[in-house]
Structure formats: C-alpha cells, structure tokens
C-alpha cells in the first residue's frame, strides 16, 4: 500500500470520526472520582504512616535509652557496692589484725585473749618508738590494774587517750581487754587510708567511749562499757556489713569533744568542715545545673486525619441531601496543621517537668462542595456553603438565605484555634541531650473558620465564634508526644517534639449532626531559654 492510498484512508476515517461524540454513563465520573479519592486517601495514609512510624520510633528510642540508662546505673551501683565491701575496715582490719596477731606470737589468740597476749599497743611500745609509746605502756599497766578493780581511773585516762590515732587503738585495746572486740578480737578501726571513710563513725565511738566512761554503772566484770561502746562498733562493723558511703546524702555530724586542743580532734574537725564545704559546693553545682524554669517559642507542622466522621440524617429530606453531602465532604476532609506558640516549663522534681503555654493553631483542608448559599435572592454573588448553612432555612421559612445546588467546586477550609496546652513530662534522659515523654490536655478555643472557593465565581465564607459557626467554641484535646532536646549552652536548648492531638469530643456542635474527632500528628521545633 502506497503512502497516498494510506493517507486517503486515514483522512476519510479521521473525517468520519472528526466530530464523533458518545455520552458516557454517569457512573464513569463517579468511578473516576472514587479512584482519585482513593489515591488522595493513600497519600494521606502514607503521610500518616510516616508520622505514626516517627512516633513509634521515638517511643521505642526513648524506652531503649531508658533501659540502657537504667542498666548502666545499676551496674555502677553494683560496682560501688562491691568496692565498699572490699574497702570495709571490718574486712581489712580482720586480716590486718590477724597478721598482726600472728606476728606477735601467742598461739591461742583466737577467741579469749589475755591483755598481755593480745595487746598490740603494748607490743608496739616494745618494738618501735612513737609518741604514744609512753601513753600506751601506761595504759598497759593500767589495764593490768583494771583487772583488780581500778577501772574508773583507767577509763578516764583511756578517754583522754582517744584523742590521737594511737590512742584510738588504745581505746580498742581497752575494749579488747573487756572481751568486747567481737568475733575478730581486733579493733575495728583501721590505720590505713580507708580509715578516712570511717572517721565520722570513729567520732561516734569516741563519744560512745566517753559516755561509757562517764557512766556511774561501769563495771569491768559485767562488761557494761562493752554494752555501750560496742553498739557503735557493732553497727558499723557487723550489723550492716559495710560502712556507709562518703557521698551519702546524710551528712554526719561531727561533735568536737571538750578537749579540742588535741591535734587529732583538730584534724577531725577540719575534715568535717571540708566535708560540709564539699557537700555545699556539690549542692550548689547541682542546683545551678538544674533547669528550674524555661520559656520557649516554637512552631509545629503536621497533618490531621478526619478519622471516619459520622454524619447523622436530618428530618428534612432535601435538607439532608444537601447538608449531608456538604457535611460529609467538609468533615471528611483531611489536611495540614500548623501552629506557633509560646511555652513555659518548670522542673518540679529530678525527673518530672510541667509545661504549658499558648498556641495559635491553623488546620487547612481542601474538599469539593456542591452547594452555595444565596443571600437575598442575589444569585449573582453566591457564597460558599458550610455545614450549618442549611440551618436557617429549616429554622425559619422567611430566612433571607437560600442554599442552591451547583456543579462541584473546590474549596479550602481554614479553621483557627487558640490552644492552651498543659503537659506533664517525664525526663528519660536529662543531660546535654535530653529525652522527655509528654502527655497532657489542651483547651482549644475556636476562633474562626474561612471557606475559600477556588476561582472567582463564589465568595468566601467566614464564620466566627458563636451561633453562626458549626464548630464548638470550647473543646478539649488530649496531647501525647516525645521531646528530643539538645543543650546549646548554659541558657539555651533546642527541642524537636513529635506529638499527637486527639479531641475528646467532636469538633462540631451536636446540632450539626456531624461527629468528627480529627487526629493530628505534628512535629514541632522549639527554642528554649532557661532561667537557672
């Protein structure tokens, strides 16, 4: 077939079909619209899925961080516990004294020592020179005489002797003489570096000894001094099994004995002062680090889903046909949500924060409407119809507004709220990087909604608070979210907070017959200024 012949056929058929038109059935457009709606729904679902995934991921992340934090904290606590047990004076002294005793002969020194056999101070006085030597030897003599009832004078001397380190040993020796040294048979106060941690308890013992000495009922035979002096020792060395940590919150009170002129006591007092100063500094540092109060500005953007609204049938059939269609499209419309606001927060405890503020919230949605409102029979300038546009017609037959059906046209509905959120937050991580879980309630004050049609044929409709609007003037929403923060300096923090907003009741008034509780997912960015 040559080109000419082909062109001839082509032309003749194209001419035959040039103005050919066949009307399709109505169902074709309905099906196309359904397909397009489905595609839009899929897009929204994908968006929602993204936000849901983000929310789920943030919660999982928060829980993982909390779990790791808890594990690390527990591990540290166990390590500290083990270290304290190892460093316990009772533990070290037991060995030290055993070695010491072994070195000092006496084969039967296990449980019932005689003063002569078990007196390390006495042994020391024989082998090395020390400032306490004279005192110790005097004590040894006095201990011997105590066996014969000379306890009172001996204890007075012993009490004075407690002032120095070697005298502390002498004091223990005194207890050992009275067979109150406990199972080890050795003094529980160590002479090594670890003793430093036991100093506060030493003072208790010193006081205990002093009290025991001053007691008129002291008797070496019935061991009443042991009953008094032994309490402090037993509570440290045996009942708890370990010494309290130095960093413990309860600060020991050190009482200076009457004879403060002693250098040992001065040392104790100095240490006590250092301890107090250190504790005060630490408290100040902690207080400075704590973010007591902050204020932040921020904005958030996200999407809201109409969340299967229900449209109740009205009594009037025509009203229902028109209004249900408009109500259905308006209430089903999903869209985007934006908010800007100011937040104030405070840390009420180590882990809990409370925050509230004011937000200006806008929710925009697009949908197709098929009716307009005509005022005073002016059909040349119709206005976009809202859910409640049909109410005046029903309520009052003489109303000057009419609702007319039109070809479908696209409108944008912009709803504005003033939102007052109050949230409690739990700090999972409170370091340079912070992680916080928030939950709370928001009081939403409806401001206005504007329905703006595309194109110029139909005028926009704005409805304010009160009777003219289909929206409730006051509504409450539940809030839930996560807040990731990063400290930028001493006074600044940046936070990203994905969150959910869900109204407790329908955003529409009950007389509209529409029940809709749109679920909003948004991600906010806030800049925080901290008042320490």
């Amino acid at each position, binding site marked *: 077939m040559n080109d000419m*012949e*082909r062109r001839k056929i082509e032309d003749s058929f194209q001419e*035959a079909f040039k103005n050919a038109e066949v009307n399709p059935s109505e169902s*074709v457009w309905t099906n196309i619209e359904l397909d397009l709606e489905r595609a839009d729904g899929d897009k929204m679902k994908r968006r929602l899925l993204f936000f849901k995934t983000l929310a789920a991921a943030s919660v999982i992340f928060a829980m993982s961080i909390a779990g790791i934090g808890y594990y690390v904290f527990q591990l540290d606590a166990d390590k500290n516990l083990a270290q304290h047990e190892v460093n316990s004076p009772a533990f070290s002294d037991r060995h030290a004294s055993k070695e010491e005793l072994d070195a000092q002969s006496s084969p039967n020194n296990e449980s019932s020592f005689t003063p002569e056999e078990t007196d390390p101070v006495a042994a020391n006085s024989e082998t090395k020179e020390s400032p306490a030597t004279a005192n110790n030897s005097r004590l040894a003599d006095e201990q011997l005489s105590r066996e014969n009832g000379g306890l009172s004078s001996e204890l007075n001397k012993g009490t004075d002797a407690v002032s120095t380190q070697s005298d502390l040993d002498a004091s223990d020796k005194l207890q050992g003489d009275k067979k109150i040294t406990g199972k080890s048979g050795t003094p529980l106060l160590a002479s090594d570096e670890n003793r430093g941690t036991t100093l506060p308890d030493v003072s208790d013992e010193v006081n205990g000894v002093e009290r025991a000495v001053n007691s008129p009922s002291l008797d070496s035979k019935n061991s009443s001094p042991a009953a008094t002096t032994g309490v402090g020792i037993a509570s440290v060395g045996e009942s708890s099994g370990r010494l309290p940590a130095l960093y413990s919150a309860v600060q020991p009170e050190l009482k200076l004995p009457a004879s403060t002129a002693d250098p040992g006591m001065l040392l104790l007092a100095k240490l006590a002062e250092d301890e107090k100063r250190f504790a005060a500094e630490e408290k100040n540092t902690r207080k400075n680090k704590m973010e007591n109060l902050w204020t932040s500005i921020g904005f958030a953007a996200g999407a809201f889903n109409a969340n299967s609204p229900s449209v109740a049938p009205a009594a009037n059939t025509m009203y229902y046909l028109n209004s249900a269609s408009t109500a259905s499209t308006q209430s089903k419309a999903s869209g985007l949500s934006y908010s800007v606001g100011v937040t104030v927060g405070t840390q009420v405890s180590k882990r809990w924060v409370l925050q509230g503020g004011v937000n200006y919230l806008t929710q925009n949605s*697009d949908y197709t409407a098929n009716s307009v409102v005509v005022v005073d029979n002016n059909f040349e300038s119709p206005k976009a119809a809202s859910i409640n546009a049909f109410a005046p017609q029903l309520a009052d037959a003489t109303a000057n507004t009419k609702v007319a059906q039109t070809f*479908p*046209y*696209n409108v944008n509905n912009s709803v504005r709220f003033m939102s007052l959120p109050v949230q409690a937050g739990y700090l999972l991580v409170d370091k340079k990087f912070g992680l916080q879980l928030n939950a709370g309630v928001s009081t939403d004050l409806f401001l206005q909604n504007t329905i703006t049609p*595309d194109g110029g044929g139909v005028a926009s409709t704005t409805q304010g608070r009160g009777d003219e609007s289909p929206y409730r003037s006051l509504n409450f929403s539940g809030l839930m979210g996560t807040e990731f923060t990063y400290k930028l300096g001493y006074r600044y923090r940046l936070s990203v907070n994905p969150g959910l907003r869900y109204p407790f009741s329908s955003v529409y008034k009950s007389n509209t017959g529409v029940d809709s509780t749109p679920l909003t997912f948004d991600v906010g960015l806030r800049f925080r200024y901290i008042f320490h």
Partner: protein
Amino acid sequence: MLSENELIEGCRKGNRASQKALYDQYCRKMLVVCLRYSKTTAEAEDILQEGFVKVFNAIKDFRQESKLETWITRIMVNTALNVQRRKLYLYPMVDVEELNLPDTEMSVSGIHFSQLLEMIQTLPHGCQIVFNLFAIEGFSHKEIAERLGISEGTSKSQFARAKSLMQAKLLKESTYYERYGEAKN
C-alpha cells in the same frame, strides 16, 4: 467557562472542580476513541475511566508541547492498548495470506461514525487494533510492530485482512443504502 490553561492549572493542583470540567469537555470524544479499541460500551467505559485517572495523575508532567486533546487521546490509546494487549496474549495474531484478499479502494463517505464504529468493533481483536493504529492514528507498521510486540509482516497482514473485512462490510452497507435509501439504525 474556564480556559484550557486554567483547567490544566486547576487539575495540576488537584482541584476536583477543574478535573470535572476537563472530564466534561473531553469525555464524549474520548469515549469514541475507546469504543474503537473495544468490543462493548462497558469495556470502553472501563478504558475511559482508567485513562482519565491516568490523565489527572500525569497532568502535572504535561508540558503543553502538544494540544491537550492530542495528549489525552494518546493516553486513551495507550490505555486501550494495555488492556487489549492482554487479549492479544490470549489470542495471538497470525499472518494472513494477503494475496487472496481483494484490494479495492475503501470509501467511507456518507457513512455515519456509529456504523463505522460498529464495523470496527466486529473486526477480530488483532485486526481491530492494527486497523485503528494504522488507518486512524497514523502509525507505521514498524511502530505498530514495536508497540504490540509483533513482526512488521504480521501487522501488514492483519491490516490487509482488516481492510478486506471493512470493505466487505462497507459494500454491504452501501448496497443496503442503495436498496433502501437510508442507512441502517
């Protein structure tokens, strides 16, 4: 009444009213295109629906280098071919002896498009598609062969058979016209 550019802009924004207006403007012409490639109206309407959904999804990529109607027609033809390709897979085209077929001139003047449509719809699947592509859309046999995944010879022979069948139908129709003074239907 919106201009074509306004319609396109509205459709690009996903404006449902613009989409409806565009559909209303072209649906009748496009249904004829779809009817040429199908056997029944229901089948054609399915193609029309699928085609318009593609139009609305792809209109943001329409660069207006061609007429909007031409662009939409191309989408309809492609959609129809996609639907018919499944059938061609089931009923593959075979070469037909051209030599045994009469080679007379084809004249469609004075015949209503609905009758032509009916004739085209009664052609066998392969012949119908090749005839549409060659005689009406203006594709070459090489292009048809590439589009349908057949040989050029098969395309030629299918067209020859389609032409022959159409000529027979046209002859029958003109005989009827001559005899009774008006066309059927």
